[in-house]
């Protein structure tokens, strides 16, 4: 039986070049970069090298890169750190209804502890209108956090436009002698495919991880623009410019650096074009051959590797498992399979009914996806849908 992985948005395999690069940092070059001796300095050199690569990729300074354990930590640090640094009594935060849980959960917590949060709606295509950000701004707004590309439906938000808007607002505020609004984006799904030049985006904070870009798990980054009012939330040593205490994950950092280098390689652009072509074939193949299907999220303003489709009158988890029996790994938008019974908040935010949201599947392609694999999926899937619909009491 073939083994076909179509869940690259969940995680990616470590690229062989990345694996090769990090191997010496376990048994031989194991030093703690905080140590002054040669073992430590050897590790520090590798960390510095990786930090430079990341800084170059984001077009920022090296001291603006903070290594964390992943995007969840980066997002938590961004939010809690900004709140810790403010003197405003009831700070206001603007975000969207389609953020990842690592943004929504910290914000829900803060709401219970005296913060005011606005959750902006997106349109039925899953895209935010920047005007809604303008309209939501309040006197006490200190933070705007918007996901760059959504993890479930892959829709891309107008980050640079919002960045421009906040810049203008901050210019006004500066004249009035008021504090700035800080702009954060969760870019974890975007790094592989979109422009992440922080100057062009106009962001003050940006989060991402290694394991979505063919790097290792357990490593992430928070970009913090110099001068941003933010405080550390984890106390201990003086690592990461006093922003994030804890011994550095050297193999993780080295791997992340290598993964970033691969994204910047010439062949990467070709890979993206090939992935998009296969993704389009997948969407067309499914929507044309299977009745009662719909693509969730904008067709054009979406990541090139994402297809999220709803199948009427059946449940996502059942499709997922039947595909798995055939060797194909996908993900479901129905939260049933992810340990909660609530359907996806992202799909509901698009205006899908509970039924439609429960019957959806996310296919995410990657560098190793082949046309043969997509053909196999297109051959298998209609049979599975037919079988499940036959079983359903709703005809």
């Amino acid at each position, binding site marked *: 039986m073939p083994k076909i992985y179509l869940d690259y948005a969940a995680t990616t395999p470590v690229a062989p070049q990345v694996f090769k690069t990090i191997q010496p940092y376990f048994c031989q070059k194991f030093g703690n970069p905080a140590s002054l001796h040669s073992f430590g300095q050897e590790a520090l050199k590798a960390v510095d090298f990786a930090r430079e690569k990341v800084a170059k990729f984001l077009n920022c300074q090296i001291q603006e890169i903070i290594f964390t354990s992943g995007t969840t930590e980066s997002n938590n640090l961004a939010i809690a750190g900004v709140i810790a640094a403010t003197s405003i009594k009831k700070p206001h935060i603007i975000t969207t209804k389609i953020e990842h849980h690592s943004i929504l959960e910290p914000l829900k917590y803060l709401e219970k502890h005296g913060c005011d949060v606005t959750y902006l709606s997106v349109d039925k295509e899953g895209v935010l209108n920047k005007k809604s950000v303008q309209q939501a701004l309040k006197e006490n707004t200190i933070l705007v956090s918007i996901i760059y590309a959504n993890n479930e439906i892959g829709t891309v938000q107008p980050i640079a436009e919002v960045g421009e808007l906040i810049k203008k607002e901050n210019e006004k505020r500066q004249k009035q002698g008021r504090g700035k609004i800080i702009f954060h984006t969760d870019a974890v799904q975007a790094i592989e495919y979109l422009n992440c030049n922080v100057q062009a985006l106009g962001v003050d904070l940006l989060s991402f991880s290694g394991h979505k870009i063919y790097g290792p798990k357990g490593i992430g980054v928070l970009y913090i623009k110099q001068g941003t009012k933010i405080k550390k939330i984890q106390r201990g040593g003086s690592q990461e410019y006093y922003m994030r205490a804890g011994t550095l994950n050297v193999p993780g950092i080295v791997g992340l650096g290598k993964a970033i280098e691969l994204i910047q390689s010439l062949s990467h652009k070709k890979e993206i074009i090939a992935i998009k072509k296969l993704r389009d074939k997948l969407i067309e193949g499914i929507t044309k051959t299977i009745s009662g299907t719909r693509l969730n999220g904008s067709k054009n303003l979406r990541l090139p590797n994402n297809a999220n489709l709803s199948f009427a*009158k*059946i*449940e996502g*988890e*059942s499709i997922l*498992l039947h595909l798995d*029996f055939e060797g194909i790994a996908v993900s479901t938008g*129905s939260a*049933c*399979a*992810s*340990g*909660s*019974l609530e*359907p996806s908040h992202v799909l509901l935010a698009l205006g899908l*009914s*509970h*039924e439609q949201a*429960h019957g959806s599947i996310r296919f995410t392609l990657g560098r190793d996806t082949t046309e043969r694999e997509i053909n196999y999926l297109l051959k298998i899937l209609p049979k599975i849908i037919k079988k499940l619909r036959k*079983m*359903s*009491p*709703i005809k």
Partner: protein
Amino acid sequence: MAIKYSQKVIEHFKNPHNMGQIKNADGVGQVGNPMCGDILRLYIKVKQNRKGQEIISDIKFETLGCAAAIANSSIITDIAKGKTLEEAKKITQTNIAKELGGLPPIKMHCSNLAASALSAAIADFLKKRKI
């Protein structure tokens, strides 16, 4: 929380028993709603055995739902088939889940749904008979 299904759940989900409709069923019970994602419909045929007791002689299901909902539907048809109505009424959520080799806590309600569908089918039969 990560979900892990027992081998038995996967077997019943993969090859469900007694799937389909019964035309001229003596009782039909449907529970669940599209909001939570699961809809379960059971069809029963009732006959008298040699002792003169009413038994479920045939039972079939149609289900829209997750693997747990489908596996529960399948196993309850196995459990109920041949049972007297009195015995069938006593089938509980716990019996069903046990037969399946356990269920993830978050999916326990699926067993409850299956037991409710059977009760509803029996109630439907009894109601129809009165008329």
